[in-house]
């Protein structure tokens, strides 16, 4: 069974569209994250939820809105997509916020045309 799964794996869309990426973890963890990895492999945290509560909200445009319906799911909705949003988005989970126990999903490659 996949521990952290994301859908879709690839997403190609036009500028200005709204899209969502879904993430689910079956590890029983209480904390989930969204990361963005750019073309230079720079990987940066965007959001973190602990027990469905937002605990980290880094400097991210408000076009990005995370939603956590329950502890096992953290979805990322992006409005009015821009060219600069093209990247690979990774979901991760951990028990607590300890940096050593994060499990990452396979990533979603978003391409904005």
């Amino acid at each position, binding site marked *: 069974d996949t521990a*952290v799964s994301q859908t879709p794996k690839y997403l190609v869309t036009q500028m200005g569209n709204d899209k969502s990426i879904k993430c689910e973890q079956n590890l029983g963890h209480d*904390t989930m*994250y969204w*990361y963005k990895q750019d073309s*230079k*492999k*720079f*990987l*940066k*945290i965007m959001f*973190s939820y602990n027990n469905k509560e937002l*605990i*980290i909200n880094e400097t991210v445009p408000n076009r990005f809105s995370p939603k956590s319906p329950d502890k096992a799911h953290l979805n990322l909705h992006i409005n009015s997509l821009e060219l600069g949003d093209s990247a690979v988005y*990774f979901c*991760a989970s*951990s028990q*607590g*916020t*300890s*940096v*050593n*126990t*994060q*499990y*990452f*999903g*396979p*990533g979603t490659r978003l391409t904005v045309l």
Partner: protein
Amino acid sequence: LAKTTQPISMDSYEGQEVNITCSHNNIATNDYITWYQQFPSQGPRFIIQGYKTKVTNEVASLFIPADRKSSTLSLPRVSLSDTAVYYCLVGDKGSARQLTFGSGTQLTVLP
């Protein structure tokens, strides 16, 4: 945030030991040093974490000098499958806010 500096890339041959050094001059007292491995088209995977001296697990060893301003990830007898990007992170063990991975070190293992 303690900033980390790693080599952009390294090449090695199968069977050799590989040492990747990370500089973190501004490391704080509560900070731990963590290394992740990322294969192409996959998410990062935790390898090892340490606070001081030496830590060893089934995958790697982590050497941390007394001043903790640097650390070295040691991979024994690498194989082609160890080709990946290796990230060094420094941060408070209890705070995910410290998690900026940087650009990592691309290790290429050659036959």
